[in-house]
């Protein structure tokens, strides 16, 4: 995502009630969630019930928090705002109120959703059009000199801005090396996550089933696998969990170590 291109995101098979939560990591923000929920009402976006939408969203945030996923502040701000909107919709209008009415707020939100939906569709239609170099081709051997060219040098605005930006980065950096925060999954994160999840799972679970969902970047996915594997070894070493594997390249199972079931005694 860093450079605006992406790999095909992994598809999620789950279609349970918690599908929203499982997809949380692929949402781009609360508006994304709202739009998807509005679509789930299976009605024209002009006729969605904002009240029902607010309820669904608040329920979503509630469930997501119960699973102790860290919700971005944006999601909570939207939840607070929707709770406010809901109260405005339910309470009778006050005469002296100078604030926009609940209906006005609801209409603004509905507009926002319709506009975003329209732009997503437009983007889809744009991409479905014929692309030069893919669906048809220009002249392969253009004959220079016949065509008007007022300039000797081939420099685009992008080249110019890039040159200035590179110069800025070089000089303003003050020579110090800047290392961008890595988006890779750390072992500490994996340990915290596994500990948390194993607390809720009584029996054996495969390592694969415990990996975080919704990661898009293949590098991030690989780093999460590596981090969780290392974390499971570390936790096993500390005696906090047990590991089992039937053979090379077979799934790795793990469960929390408790003296009660620990006596069954599988080797690591």
């Amino acid at each position, binding site marked *: *995502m*860093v*450079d*605006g*291109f*992406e790999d*095909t995101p992994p598809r999620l098979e789950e279609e349970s009630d918690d599908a929203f939560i499982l997809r949380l990591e692929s949402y*781009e*923000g*609360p*508006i*994304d969630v709202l739009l998807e929920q509005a679509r789930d009402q299976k009605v024209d976006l002009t006729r969605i019930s904002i009240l029902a939408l607010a309820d669904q969203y608040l329920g979503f945030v509630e469930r997501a928090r119960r699973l102790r996923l860290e919700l971005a502040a*944006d999601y909570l*701000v*939207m939840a*607070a*705002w929707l709770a*406010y909107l809901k109260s405005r919709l339910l309470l009778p209008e006050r005469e002296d109120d100078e*604030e*926009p009415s609940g209906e*006005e*707020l609801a209409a*603004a*939100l509905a*507009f*926002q959703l*319709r*506009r*975003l939906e*329209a*732009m*997503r*569709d*437009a*983007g*889809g*239609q*744009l*991409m479905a*059009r*014929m*692309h*030069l*170099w*893919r*669906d*048809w*081709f*220009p*002249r*392969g051997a*253009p*004959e220079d000199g*016949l*065509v*008007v060219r007022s300039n000797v040098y081939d420099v*685009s*605005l*992008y080249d110019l*801005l890039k040159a200035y930006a590179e110069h800025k980065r070089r000089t303003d950096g003050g020579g110090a090396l800047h290392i961008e925060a890595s988006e890779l999954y750390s072992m500490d994160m994996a340990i915290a996550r596994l500990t948390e999840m194993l607390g809720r799972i009584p029996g054996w679970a495969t390592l694969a089933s415990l990996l975080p969902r919704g990661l898009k970047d293949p590098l991030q996915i690989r780093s999460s696998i590596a981090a969780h594997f290392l974390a499971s070894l570390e936790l096993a070493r500390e005696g906090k969990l047990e590991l089992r594997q039937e053979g090379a390249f077979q799934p790795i199972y793990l469960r929390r170590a408790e003296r009660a079931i620990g006596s069954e005694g599988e080797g690591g």
Partner: protein
Amino acid sequence: MRDVTEHADNVLELPRRGPEGDLAHHVRLVEALLFASAEPLEDAVLRDRLPPDADLARVMECLGEHYRGRGVQLVRVAKGWAFRTAPDLTAQLRIETPVVRKLSRAAVETLAIVAYHQPVTRAEIESIRGVATSKGTLDTLMEAGWIRPGRRRMTPGRPLTWVTTKGFLDHFGLASIDELPGVEELKAAGLLDSRPAITTLPGGRAEELTGEDQDDTDDRESF
């Protein structure tokens, strides 16, 4: 079996005098020009190469008629004219093409917003999408040659706007931005209003979004 040296004969076959002879000659000129160029040529460029009395519309009509149904077609793109291979043949051409990477969902959405709402500021893009524009999205679209900075908006903070380029029209086979799919319907439905929908909202995200406008300015000291 034609040979370069044979051209003199061929040329003689067309009438060289009178209005029809002129038209035929103008068609040949424009045909040669468009064939020589990989990029679309605008009407003005073509007119420059023709005598002042030439009827460009008529010339283009004749030329288009001549290429109707052939393997190469005359098309109106990017405010100009170009020859392009007939799309139904693409599968059989197997032409080496530069590698095209798939745009992220965010980039497609941003491109659509710039195309349909232009000129549009970054703050407006963010308000429409409801999320901050991740760094690199505009950069990527600009590098692809599809968007460029436009005029500054004459509002507080004088934010920079973004617009699409001719390269964008050329790539997607559009004659102008009026031809964007569904643009009329969207306009009629009021969905091309770029203002934040929730500007009036107390408390929430609206302030954060509009507040961004001011941020666009702070760098003018470098001038």
